[in-house]
């Protein structure tokens, strides 16, 4: 691949501080003007086992992980044999001098001495940063911030350890002198690309943090959750800012409570969300249907991991698209947003809140462990321009993504009245029949109007009915909202050559790897393009069918075994995608993986796409 990126892997046992070191190093890279793509690979245990934190980095924008390793930071002995095969030519291994390592690429480090047996993470960070040629002052500032908050008493000692590590690695000792510094390039060592000093300051966050921040910026006021990897850091991020942002995050007894609580809170005026993963989401399915029936806005974040059942709790997969699309009994509209980058995690979560509020129905943000845990450098958001939802106005405000539906009251008055008679007549019609299916929504207690809704079929005033003629109107009312949702759907992104020989089709977190694989194919002389879905539902075929029709060979690339997006496209368009690249081993898609699979597909000869 032609990307000038550099891949660092930090490997060791759970409990050795891999994530701490990884996050600090990543942050230092971001503050030094680099882009990063972090991939976290860990096991479902608290100690031991083998974990790896990958930071792929580059001065230019990169959006995919990389398999080959340029710098391996081994925190235990096991790490070296596990990864040494992936270390590229000229790559380097950093390991404690106490570890057995025959590998001649290995730089043995006297961590004991540098860390004074206490500040190991800092020492590791120092050596690596120094070798990468990162700025000592920036590193020191970072250490100061990090420990200043939690352990101010340790700041000084940490800074000393950092200094010792920097000094040592800078070549002030015999052993390190044998190794050319990575940053220096030449001498057979892998090039560590220099970032231009001028790069604007960027934030560092992972997918889950971006979702939490997007939610808060959109006006989220309530989140209910039950811990479940890899979703938990969404509520944990919210909790860390809850006091400042003014929201309540409640850890609940089970996922059923979570979804029902969120629906109840939303009904009562708090923009609400839940975050979970497959098994937890399975328990929320009835609640999704409740939100659909009561027309209550609800945002659900589903961070996928490999199933079925408990599966591989800490790994990644994209196998719940069909599940999320069909979750809930009965028929009602929904939207499923599938961010492909950390920025999209932020913006599409915002969009989810606006869509949920406007269309009064459940909206999903569907991600996965890879993206959830993937730190990136993110350009600061223009806070001034970020609108937020205002429940109960029944329509969207200002320039937000939902645009200008009618104000409350207007359409309600126009709607047919199938409400019950008695003292209620003329009362507020929570489920008023309207042209577009959207009823003006009021919040209980915010006016003298009584707000009534029901999980049973109901009349316009929200009271339960068994009138089968009303039933027809209500089914049609709810489904009519789909039309509006389609109009507001994010069309798939088309990138690459026109009428290409190869068209890769993807969704969600695979965006970066697929884009990079496409570039490589193009460089290999094949015209190539990518059709990527950041929203998989609802789908507007007219927005993309032409791309499928014009491509030579259409290949879906998905992190699942059955080709779930391909199936959905077939269902909606009749276009049967001929070839499929699947990954279902719990690892994220990588450009390398896609290219390898593409080669073996190619070997088999092309299956024609199109209608069979």
């Amino acid at each position, binding site marked *: 691949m032609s990307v000038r990126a550099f891949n660092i892997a930090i490997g060791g046992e759970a409990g050795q501080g891999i994530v701490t070191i990884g996050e600090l190093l990543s942050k230092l890279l971001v503050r030094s003007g680099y882009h990063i793509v972090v991939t976290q690979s860990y096991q479902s245990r608290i100690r031991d086992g083998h974990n790896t934190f990958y930071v792929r980095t580059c001065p230019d924008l990169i959006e995919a992980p990389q398999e080959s390793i340029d710098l391996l930071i081994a925190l235990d002995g096991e790490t070296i044999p596990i990864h040494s095969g992936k270390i590229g030519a000229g790559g380097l291994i950093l390991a404690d001098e106490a570890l057995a390592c025959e590998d001649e690429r290995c730089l043995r480090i006297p961590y004991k001495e540098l860390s004074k047996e206490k500040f190991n993470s800092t020492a590791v960070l120092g050596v690596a940063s120094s070798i990468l040629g990162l700025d000592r002052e920036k590193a020191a500032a970072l250490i100061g911030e990090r420990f200043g908050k939690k352990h101010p008493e340790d700041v000084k000692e940490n800074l000393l350890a950092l200094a010792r590590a920097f000094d040592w690695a800078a070549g002030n000792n015999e052993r390190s002198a044998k190794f050319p510094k990575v940053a220096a390039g030449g001498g057979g060592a892998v090039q560590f690309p220099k970032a231009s000093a001028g790069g604007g300051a960027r934030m560092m966050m992972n997918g889950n943090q971006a979702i939490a921040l997007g939610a808060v910026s959109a006006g989220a006021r*309530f989140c209910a959750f039950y811990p479940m990897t890899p979703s938990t850091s969404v509520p944990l991020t919210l909790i860390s800012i809850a006091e400042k942002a003014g929201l309540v995050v409640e850890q*609940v007894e089970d996922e059923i409570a979570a979804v*029902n609580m969120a629906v109840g809170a939303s009904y009562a005026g708090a923009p609400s969300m839940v975050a979970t993963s497959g098994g937890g989401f399975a328990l929320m399915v009835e609640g999704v249907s409740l939100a659909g029936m009561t027309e209550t806005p609800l945002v659900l974040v589903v961070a996928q991991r490999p199933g079925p059942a408990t599966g591989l709790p800490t790994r990644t997969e994209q196998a719940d698209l069909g599940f999320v699309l069909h979750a809930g009994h009965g028929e009602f509209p929904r939207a499923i947003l599938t961010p492909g980058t950390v920025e999209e995690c932020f913006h599409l979560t915002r969009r989810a809140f606006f869509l949920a509020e406007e269309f009064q129905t459940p909206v999903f943000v569907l991600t996965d462990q890879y993206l959830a845990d993937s730190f990136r450098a993110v350009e600061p958001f223009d806070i001034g321009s970020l609108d937020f939802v205002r429940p109960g106005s029944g329509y969207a405000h200002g320039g937000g993504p939902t645009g200008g539906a009618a104000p409350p009251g207007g359409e309600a008055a126009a709607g047919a009245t199938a409400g019950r008679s008695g003292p209620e007549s003329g009362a507020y019609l929570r489920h008023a029949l309207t042209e577009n299916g959207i009823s003006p929504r009021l919040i209980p*207690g*915010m006016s003298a109007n*009584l707000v009534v809704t029901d999980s049973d079929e109901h009349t316009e005033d*929200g009271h339960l009915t068994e009138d089968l003629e009303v039933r027809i109107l209500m089914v049609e009312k709810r489904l009519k909202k789909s039309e509006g949702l389609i109009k507001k759907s994010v069309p798939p992104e088309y990138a690459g050559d026109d009428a290409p020989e190869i068209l890769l089709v993807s969704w969600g977190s695979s965006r970066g790897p697929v884009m990079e694989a496409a570039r490589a194919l193009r460089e290999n002389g094949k015209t190539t393009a990518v059709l990527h879905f950041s929203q998989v539902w609802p789908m507007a075929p007219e927005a993309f069918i032409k791309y499928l029709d014009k491509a030579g060979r259409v290949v879906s690339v998905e992190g699942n075994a059955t080709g779930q997006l391909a199936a959905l496209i077939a269902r909606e368009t009749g276009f049967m995608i001929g070839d499929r690249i699947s990954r279902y081993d719990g690892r994220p898609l990588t450009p390398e993986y896609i290219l390898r699979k593409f080669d073996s597909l190619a070997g088999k000869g092309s299956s024609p796409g199109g209608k069979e």
Partner: protein
Amino acid sequence: MTKIEDYGKYETAWCPGCGNFSLLEAMKSGLVKAGLAPDRVIFVSGIGQAAKAPHYLNANVFNGLHGRALPAATGAKIANHEMSVIVESGEGCCYGEGGNHFLAAIRRNIDIAMIVHDNQIYGLTKGQASPTSQEGMKTKAQPGGVLSERFNPVAVAVAMHAGFVARSFTGMPDHLSDMINLAIRHRGFALVDVLQPCVSFNKVNNFAWYKKRCRELPPDHDPLDWEKAMKIAMEWDEKIPVGVIYKNDRASFCDRLSVLGKGPLAERGVDKKELASILDEYM
């Protein structure tokens, strides 16, 4: 001043003679005693015959899923803690399907009054045993008699130090509306388990059966005395105590949620300055 009439009068889908009717009237008068206007109350119910009750009075109503009234009510209360939130549902809904939420609500001491229509049977689904059905009682689904021991909600609530635990009977309308009033006024989780004859399916625990057994607690009963309350909670077969069996003044959930100090969540916007400072942490 709120009047009974403010809560309206509606046709119901209940069987003639059902205890639900008295409970509906007692609820209205309890609301009036508590001085609550219809638009300041949110009723949350589940699914069942009892759960239809909130449709028969004027109020804000969220009639949710079977078994899930409590979490929906908890969410509503957190979203707007200035509203009075009342859960009204059947015992199948509250202690059967919803058993886990019952435990959690007690532990949270969430500021909700939970009024349970306890007819010791699944009414709407036509007469299967419910969690509170008497052991040995025969139904179509339990032709050999109920095998599980009767769930005693009062005992579990007392054992868990619920904020307010009361029992009443639809045959004692004044007592019942008093209990409802007290439950609504209690700051924290308040349970009223209401014995409610089901004329269609429960032929054992009928009006006369309850009438014969229900006894008001003596005026000197001290509901703050946990040990005493625990003993009283176990009484059933011969004599069923009604009244406020136990209470305490543990701080309620909403009172302990510091974020709510700035007013109801439902009324807040996004503070851009705070947002900027939050995002700054990611630089």
